[in-house]
C-alpha cells in the first residue's frame, strides 16, 4: 500500500516535524514508562515520586508471575484464543465461500442477518448467553467462552472473507468443478491457498479481540482455574492494594506477548486492523 517513490517530498528533511514526532512518541509512551518504572520499584518505593528506582527489582516479575499464577492464566487465554480463532476461521471460510460462490435460496438474507451482528454490543447479551451456557452445560468452561467468541467473530470474518472470495474469477471454480472436485475440495485446495492475505487479516482481528476480551469472560467464567489473563489481573484489583509494583509487573507481562507478535508481524497487524475496519 505504501509507495515511497510516489511522494517526492518525503525524503526532504523537516527537523521540526521530526522533533514533533519524537515529542509525541515520548508523550504517548510516558504512561507505559511510568508503569515500567513502577514495576521495578520496591513495595516501599512505590509511593515515592521519581522515574528511576534506586535499585531496580527485576525479581518483581518473578514474584508477580508466581503470586498471581500468571502461567495458568496464560495457558487459559492461549487455549481459548487459539480454539476460538481456529474454529471461527474454518466456519467463516465455509460460509463466506457459500455466500460468495454457491448462492442458495435465502443466502443473501442470511448474510444480511449476520451483518447485523457487527452492531450488537456483546455486553447487552450477557444474561441470555449465561442462561444458554447453563443449559448447554458449558457455563464456566473454556469451551463455552470460546464458542461465544466464535459466534461474535463470525460476522466480521464472514464479511471480510466473502469480499475476497467474491473477487475470485468464476472460471477458476468452474474449471475445478468440471474436473470433478467437490465444493469442500475446491475450498480447501484452490480457494484457501489463494486467500492467505484475507485469512491473516481475520486472524489478526480475532486474535486481538479474543485475547483482550473482558465482559463475556467475566460473566461466563466463574472459577479462578478457568480465568483468562484479563480476568485474573482484574481479580487482583483491590485484593492486595498495596502491591502496585507487582500488579504493574503483571500488566507488563500480560502485554508483552501481544506487542512482541506485533513487532514481528507489523505489516500483517496493520493491514489486518485496517482492512478489518475499512472493508467492513
Amino acid at each position, binding site marked *: 500500500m505504501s509507495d*515511497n517513490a*510516489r*511522494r517526492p517530498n518525503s525524503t526532504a*528533511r*523537516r527537523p521540526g*516535524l*521530526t*522533533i*514533533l*514526532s519524537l515529542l*509525541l*512518541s515520548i508523550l*504517548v*509512551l*510516558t504512561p507505559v514508562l*511510568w508503569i515500567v518504572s513502577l514495576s521495578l520499584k520496591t513495595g516501599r518505593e512505590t*509511593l515515592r515520586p521519581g522515574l528511576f528506582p534506586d535499585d531496580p527489582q527485576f525479581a518483581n516479575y518473578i514474584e508477580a508471575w508466581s503470586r498471581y499464577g500468571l502461567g495458568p492464566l496464560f495457558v487459559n487465554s492461549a487455549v481459548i484464543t487459539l480454539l476460538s480463532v481456529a474454529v471461527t476461521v474454518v466456519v467463516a471460510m*465455509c*460460509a463466506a465461500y*457459500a455466500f460468495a460462490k*454457491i448462492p*442458495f435460496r435465502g443466502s443473501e438474507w442470511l448474510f444480511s*442477518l*449476520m451483518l447485523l*451482528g457487527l*452492531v*450488537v*454490543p456483546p*455486553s*447487552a*447479551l450477557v*444474561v*441470555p448467553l449465561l*442462561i*444458554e451456557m447453563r443449559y448447554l452445560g458449558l457455563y464456566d468452561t473454556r469451551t463455552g467462552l470460546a*464458542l461465544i467468541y466464535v*459466534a461474535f467473530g*463470525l460476522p466480521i470474518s464472514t464479511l471480510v472473507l466473502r469480499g475476497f472470495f467474491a473477487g475470485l474469477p*468464476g472460471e477458476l471454480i*468452474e474449471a475445478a*468443478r468440471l474436473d470433478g472436485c467437490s*465444493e469442500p475440495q475446491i*475450498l480447501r485446495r484452490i480457494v484457501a491457498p489463494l486467500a492467505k492475505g484475507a485469512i491473516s487479516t481475520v486472524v489478526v482481528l480475532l486474535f486481538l479481540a479474543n*485475547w*483482550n476480551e*473482558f465482559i463475556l469472560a467475566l*460473566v461466563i467464567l466463574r472459577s479462578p482455574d478457568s480465568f483468562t489473563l*484479563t480476568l485474573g*489481573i*482484574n481479580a487482583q484489583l483491590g485484593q492486595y492494594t498495596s502491591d*502496585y509494583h507487582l*500488579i504493574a509487573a503483571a*500488566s507488563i507481562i*500480560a*502485554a508483552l506477548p501481544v506487542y512482541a507478535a506485533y513487532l514481528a508481524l507489523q505489516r500483517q*497487524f*496493520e493491514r489486518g*486492523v485496517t482492512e478489518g475496519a*475499512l472493508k*467492513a
Partner: protein
Amino acid sequence: MTGKHSLQARARRPPRRASNAQVGFALAAPAVFTFVGLVAVPVVAVVLTSLTTWTGFALGDIEWLGLGNYLTMSQDPIFWRALTNTLIFTIATTVLLNIVGLGLAVLVDTRVPGTRLLKAVLFLPVLLSPVIVGLMWSGLLRGVGGGLNQLLDFLGLINQPVFWLGDSRFALAAVIMATVWQFAGYNMILYYAGLQSVPQTLLEAAELDGAGRRDKFVHVVLPALYHVMGVVVILNVIGGLRIFDIVYVMTRGGPSRSTEVLATYMYEQAFQLNAMGYAAAIAVVLILLAFAATLLRARMLRHV
C-alpha cells in the same frame, strides 16, 4: 456461461448426489446456526426479558410485566445519568479520536525521520486489553503516589494530591482521556490508510493551480477521506456506546455515579441486584442506540 458449463458437466458425469444449493446451505449452516443460537436468539431473549419481572436465574421465576421496566426506567435518575454519561463519553471520544487520529496520520504520512517510531509507539496501546489500560491509568491517576500528581507536584502546579478518579468533577474526563490514549493509534492507522488513496494527480493539479498546503488539505485531501471518515466515526460511536471494561476497571461507575454508563449500570442490575428484567430493558436501549447510529450513518452516506 455458468449454465452452459454445468450443463456440460451434467451431460458428462453421473448426476451429483446433492444439488449445488444444498451444498451451499450445508457450508453456510455451521456459521448461520452458531450465529443465530448465540447472537440472534439472545437479542430476541433480551427483548422478551425486558418485558418481564425476573429476579434471579431460574426460568420459573419469570413474570410478565409488559412495559413496566421501561416506565421504571423513564423515572430512574440513575438510568438517565448512565445514558447521559454514555452519550457524553461517546461523543467526546469520537470527536477527540478523529481530530487526534487525523492529525497524527497526516504527520506520519510525511514520512520524515521519527514517524516510523511514532507509528509503532501509537500502536502499542491499541494492542492492549482495556483492562490493562484501565489498570495503568488507575495507577497514573491515583491520588497518593500517582504519576500525574507526582508530575504536577514536581512542576509546582499543585500542593496537595488531587484524587482524579475519586472526584466526580474529573472521573469521566479521566476515563475519556484513557480511552483516547488507547485508540488514537487505531484511528491514526485507518486515516493513514485513507491518505494513501488520495489521488496524487489531484494534489499535483492543485499545486499547479497554486494551492497552498491548507487549500490542498481542505479541498483535495479531506473530500477524498469522507468515506474513511464515515467508517471511522461509526466504529468509534459503536465502540463508545458499548464501553464497559475501562470504566469497570477504573471507577466501577463511581464516584457517586459520575462515570456510570449503560453497560456498567446494566451489569450492576443483572449481577449485583439480580434484576434481570430491568437489566434487559437497559440492554435493549443499548442495542437500539447502536442500531440508530448505524442507520443514521447509512442515511448520511446516501446523501453524500
